[in-house]
């Protein structure tokens, strides 16, 4: 229930962004339009969301930004190295997350981690196949995925 209210507010704010006008009437118009859109898509909703998740979401976003910058620095180093001596490869990573959106967020984060990129997911959503720029720091990557990302995502979903 509250999840749907929040989504509605987000739709209203998006409408305000698109109009680039920030007064009450624009918000109300956006709210009504968002209500129409959510009415059309109503059978895709399940009742979820509690308000204390918001903080965890923000922490996840912060993590996202930090990882993007650090991943860029490491890719930059490899690209600008005069000799191409990295050893790429695909390794399997078993995740403990089960819900679809959790796995989506996790693979987005992995794609933005230093030198790793998700290639495929096994049919039962248990194993992520990750292409690594340099297989030598595989243990490092697995450790950071397990202890930073999965924990932060579980914080949001619990």
């Amino acid at each position: 229930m509250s999840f749907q209210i929040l989504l509605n507010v987000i739709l209203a704010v998006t409408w305000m962004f698109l109009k680039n006008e920030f007064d009450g009437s624009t918000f109300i118009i956006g709210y009504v339009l968002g209500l129409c859109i959510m009415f059309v898509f109503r059978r895709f909703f399940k009742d979820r969301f509690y308000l204390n998740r918001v903080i965890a979401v923000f922490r996840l976003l912060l993590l996202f930004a930090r990882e993007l910058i650090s991943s860029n620095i490491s890719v930059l180093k490899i690209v600008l190295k005069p000799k191409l001596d990295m050893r790429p490869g695909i390794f399997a990573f078993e995740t403990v997350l089960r819900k679809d959106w959790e796995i989506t967020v996790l693979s987005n984060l992995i794609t933005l981690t230093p030198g790793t990129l998700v290639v495929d997911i096994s049919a039962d959503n248990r194993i992520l196949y990750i292409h690594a720029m340099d297989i030598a720091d595989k243990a490092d990557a697995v450790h950071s995925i397990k202890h930073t990302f999965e924990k932060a995502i579980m914080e949001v979903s619990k």
Partner: protein
Amino acid sequence: MTAIVEILSALFLLMGVFLFLVSAFGIIRLPDVYTRNHAASKSSTLGILFILIGTLLYFFHEHGHVDFRIVLAILFIFMTSPVAGHLINRSAYHSGVKMWDRSVQDDLKKGR
């Protein structure tokens, strides 16, 4: 004050363009699709982030208000760029593009 904002904005623009150049260099230089995708999907994302932040700062100090269309663009590119990179990588693997001959490990082949 205006000088500081201008210098910051110029710095962001230059950093973004530098990342674009690195990304183009990587796309030309790296040996196979998968490693090229690393260069393209990461450096380009951070590059466009820096350039849009620089544009935001410039318009802020020129016109005096934050233009939220740029914020919207930043959010959208942040959400879609890793998805696009993953999709290209996956379609490349399934359509049978070979990995670089110095690749050492392929767990996905074992898994199916």
